């Protein structure tokens, strides 16, 4: 029979698994999650970014990473996530996904569970785990959002983006019981537009779903972002003192 001879270790802080989703594609999820990860790493935090777009990966492209190993190996070969992990800068590591692999985009429930379970084996080493999910409301998007502790929804002022973000929140709320959502409004003309879009979305969410979202911030239109994506370098590394860079750092303050 076991006896307690040692003092129990202090309880570990809950992992911060944050899933970035949008509903609509191309609204800047990957760019935002990558730069937030860079910002937190620059402040001494350890961040793991999981590319949740399992069949059409983008994180490695935005980072200019030529990943030889991907999460496909975890699912298909039972590889350890440690074998796949790529360190971008000190404190910021990435689990890359594969691109052009339909079967990875349509994992069975058991495979998704297997994958998140494998990732959980290494998250002790990190302060934050970000998941950059795929666009849409597919199984993997819902699974990662359900797995995460916090849900960040990225949207732009476009009606299509608003509708898709709202639809995603509605699904996560109705089918998965999620109630807390954090919104980042990307590609706005100015802070006022960002706040107006948030207020509008917040009103509709409150009226129809009884949800009160949190405003994480608004990121203004900035050519530095476009250039950074083309250069495959996070703008927070090369051009932190830009409109978008400053907005990202404000959000880093909130997450820190």
């Amino acid at each position: 029979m076991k006896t307690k001879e040692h003092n129990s270790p202090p309880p570990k802080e809950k992992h911060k698994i944050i899933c970035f989703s949008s509903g609509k594609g191309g609204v800047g999820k990957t760019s935002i999650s990558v730069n937030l990860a860079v910002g937190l790493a620059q402040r001494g935090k350890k961040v793991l970014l999981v590319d949740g777009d399992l069949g059409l990966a983008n994180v490695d492209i935005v980072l200019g990473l030529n990943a030889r190993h991907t999460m496909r190996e975890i699912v298909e070969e039972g590889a350890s996530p440690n074998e796949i992990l790529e360190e971008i800068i000190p404190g910021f590591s990435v689990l890359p996904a594969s691109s052009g692999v339909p079967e990875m985009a349509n994992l069975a429930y058991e495979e998704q569970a297997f994958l998140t379970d494998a990732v959980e084996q290494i998250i002790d080493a990190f302060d934050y785990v970000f998941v950059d999910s795929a666009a849409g409301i597919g199984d993997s998007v819902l699974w990662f959002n359900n797995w995460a502790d916090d849900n960040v929804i990225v949207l732009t002022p476009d009606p299509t983006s608003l509708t898709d973000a709202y639809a995603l929140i509605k699904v996560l709320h109705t089918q998965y019981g999620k109630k807390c959502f954090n919104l980042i409004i990307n590609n706005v003309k100015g802070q006022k537009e960002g706040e107006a879009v948030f207020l509008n979305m917040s009103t509709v969410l409150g009226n129809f779903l009884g949800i009160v979202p949190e405003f994480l911030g608004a990121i203004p239109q900035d050519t530095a972002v476009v250039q950074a994506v083309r250069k495959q370098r996070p703008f927070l590394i090369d051009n932190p003192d830009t409109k978008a860079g400053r907005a990202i750092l404000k959000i880093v303050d909130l997450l820190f």
Partner: protein
Amino acid sequence: MKTDTQSANHSFSNSVHQLEKHIARIAAYSLRIYNDDGSLNGICLLAADLQQEKREAIEKAINRCKGITVEKSGSDKTFNKKISLLPAKKKSAKDAAQLSGYEYFIENLEAVSHHAALTRIPFSVLLIQPCRAMSSTELKYLSDTIRDNLNYEDIFSVYEAAKIHGNKGRKGVCLAVIIPSAGLSKARKRAEEIRQAVFASPGVSKKKQGLSVGLGVSYAGECIGVREFLLSVEKHLQEAAAIGDCISWEKGRRSANSCQVTAEERAQLFGQLK
């Protein structure tokens, strides 16, 4: 007031329950092991992707131990179907052996339903009835054919529908299959596979032997009770039986319960932007 033994047992049960709860998201099965007196002895966790032969070896090893027993009833042939999904059934081995086919089915349905609520993974139920009356030999043959075509995680039971309390609409033997982790498309495919396997069996032709199948899918987000869910599947079985030799499922349920963004929601979303 609890005695020390009671407290210890209670604590152990709690630990097992906690363990089951925490591994519910993992692709694993649990096998509760009971003492002969019905008290919980331990828990064995099996990875879902464990090879069949290894799994059978583990089951046999546990079964060889004296003084303990795993939950099982019926013949050894069906032993590997008795491993319950998380959480395991609460009945002791003795109780489980006394369960009727229907009770066994309901117990497993409750366990799978609980698992679905924890993992948000849907599951499906097939209720199968032959289109014409069958002799007991024919029925056993049909039952064995279906059993032989089940996947490892599927749970199969046979019960007399007419004996179910409150069931006035349907009579005869019902063959029930619980398919864990299956949404509508997967369950439809499995139902059709089972039907084809039955028709392809020697001695059974589709002309002679039609099968009516009622199919129900339980989505975790719907929070529907087991009995209520079962009633809906039985309704589909009745519909299938009325048509004859087909699979019936509720086609509109998912969309009726969907999260579709309504015109009113859209109007508000866009209204203030203009």
